């Protein structure tokens, strides 16, 4: 199947000479939720801006919905809805007019029924005749999404959609994104909240200093790079790690009451059994033990700081 977004050898050098994107190659499939992770200034927003037509590319080829974003910009842009990071809105317009404006701008004939549906889904219907300046920050964020959905795009970009948003609204948005995916919309989201990517994404791309350093199915990424940790709470305090245990990567907690053993989640788990056996042999008793898988956040931090 043809990818919905295809980026080939994309480079972006800003006027001052700063290279924001370095030879990016990326394909995003129809109907998937793709999360683009990266630290501040890694090039996430630059890449989205290029795909959406807000920023010029320096070299390379980008297609959206199968259309070249330069040669067939009309068709390419018709397929895209963009929710930018900043809350940029007209203060004086009403919600209804602002959303209708967006639909018209994207070349679609007026369709009040669709606008009503979008506003209702985003809990903005009651506010439709309010001026935008009277809306709260969270409501403005919903409005930005309503504008992006006004022309029924098949690809939706969400640039940091939940930055500065309260927990309830964040849950609402996740819910909405899932619903959109069910309708066949391809969703690309950038986020700082790794929890968000972990919760929602099918695939994850990590960008660092303008380079895509990894693209992986979320589940594979978690198992491939995820670490497991075994914590043993000891009956008696240890002053140092006994010599018999040095074969394994074991650490002792500061208070001396906990042994921490870290291992790759993919590795066969003979290490755990071996460790426990050794502990029994040398007479170290433990009260409790627990294991834990590392979260995407830890994986991410590990990748970005490599």
């Amino acid at each position, binding site marked *: 199947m043809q990818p919905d977004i295809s980026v080939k050898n994309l480079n972006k050098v800003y*006027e001052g000479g700063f290279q924001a994107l370095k030879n990016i190659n990326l394909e995003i499939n129809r109907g998937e939720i793709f999360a683009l992770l990266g630290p501040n200034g890694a090039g996430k927003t630059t890449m989205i801006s290029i795909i959406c037509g807000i920023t010029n590319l320096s070299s390379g080829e980008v297609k959206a919905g199968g259309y070249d974003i330069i040669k067939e910009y009309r068709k390419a842009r018709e397929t895209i809805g*963009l929710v930018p990071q900043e809350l940029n*809105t007209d203060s004086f317009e009403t919600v209804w*007019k602002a959303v*209708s404006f967006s*639909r018209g*701008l994207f070349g679609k004939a007026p369709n009040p029924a669709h606008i009503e549906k979008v506003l209702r889904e985003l809990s903005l219907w009651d506010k439709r005749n309010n001026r935008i300046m009277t809306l709260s920050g969270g409501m403005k964020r919903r409005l930005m999404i309503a504008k992006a959905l006004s022309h029924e795009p098949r690809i939706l970009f969400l640039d940091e959609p939940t930055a500065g948003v309260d927990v309830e609204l964040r849950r609402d948005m996740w819910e909405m994104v899932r619903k959109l995916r069910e309708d066949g919309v391809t969703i690309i989201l950038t986020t700082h909240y790794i929890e968000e990517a972990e919760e929602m994404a099918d695939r994850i791309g990590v960008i660092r200093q303008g380079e895509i350093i990894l693209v992986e199915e979320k589940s594979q990424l978690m198992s491939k790079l995820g670490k497991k940790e075994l914590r043993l709470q000891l009956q008696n305090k240890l002053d140092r790690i006994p010599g018999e245990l040095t074969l394994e990567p074991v650490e002792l907690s500061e208070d001396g009451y906990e042994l921490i053993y870290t291992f790759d989640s993919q590795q066969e788990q003979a290490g755990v059994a071996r460790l426990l056996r050794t502990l029994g042999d040398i007479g170290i008793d433990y009260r409790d033990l627990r294991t834990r898988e590392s979260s995407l956040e830890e994986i991410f931090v590990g990748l970005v700081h490599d």
Partner: protein
Amino acid sequence: MNFYGVKAIYNFEMSRMGRTLMQSVLSPVISTCLYFVVFGSAIGSRMGNIDNIEYGAYIIPGLVMLSLLMQSISNASFGIYMPKFSGTIYEVLSAPVSYVEVVLGYVGAAATKSVILGLIILATARLFVDYSVLHPFWMLSFLVLTAITFSLFGFIIGIWADGFEKLQIVPMMIVTPLTFLGGTFYSIDMLPDIWQTISLFNPVVYLISGFRWAFYGVSDVHVGISVGMTFVFLLACMAGIWWIFKTGYRLRS
């Protein structure tokens, strides 16, 4: 052609005018009324006729032109500057609209507002002075062409400006002096020779002269030259806008 896109921009801009009726319509009308009261009725009654036209009537085309130029520039420059300032420009840049369509929407709306305003001022002038229009077709043509040309010019200023000050500088520091010295209140024939020659470098002279010819059949320069010059400005502004969109100047980095 993205017809709905052009319409969306055009309607958005026109509704902005509706919201700012005081500023867009009332204030130019009031200031023009003041000119008529002072120069038309109070001082004008003591002035001799120029080219056999009563002074109060003589200044009408120039005063309409003054408002038309100022309003075209400020409407169009604000129209495109505000989205740049508030950041909402992202939507226009990411929309399937060509630059011709963007210009049609913004400049079309700005020019429409200016023409409406020009006609309102003409109607208001009627309350103070009796005048007639000898060539109504040409009068309207000059009105519309000048409104379009200077709305294009305003659009360029709005894109160039990176602060509110710059938005004001060109209309205040350049267009107002050029209009006052461009024969709004006098015929350039009344100037010493050297100033007549210098005046011919003032583009507004051609606009006012042509417009006055449409009213009374008299002009400082031949009407053909006025029409020609108006088209030259129009083309120059179009070329400027073409360059802006081609290079993405101050729009796309």
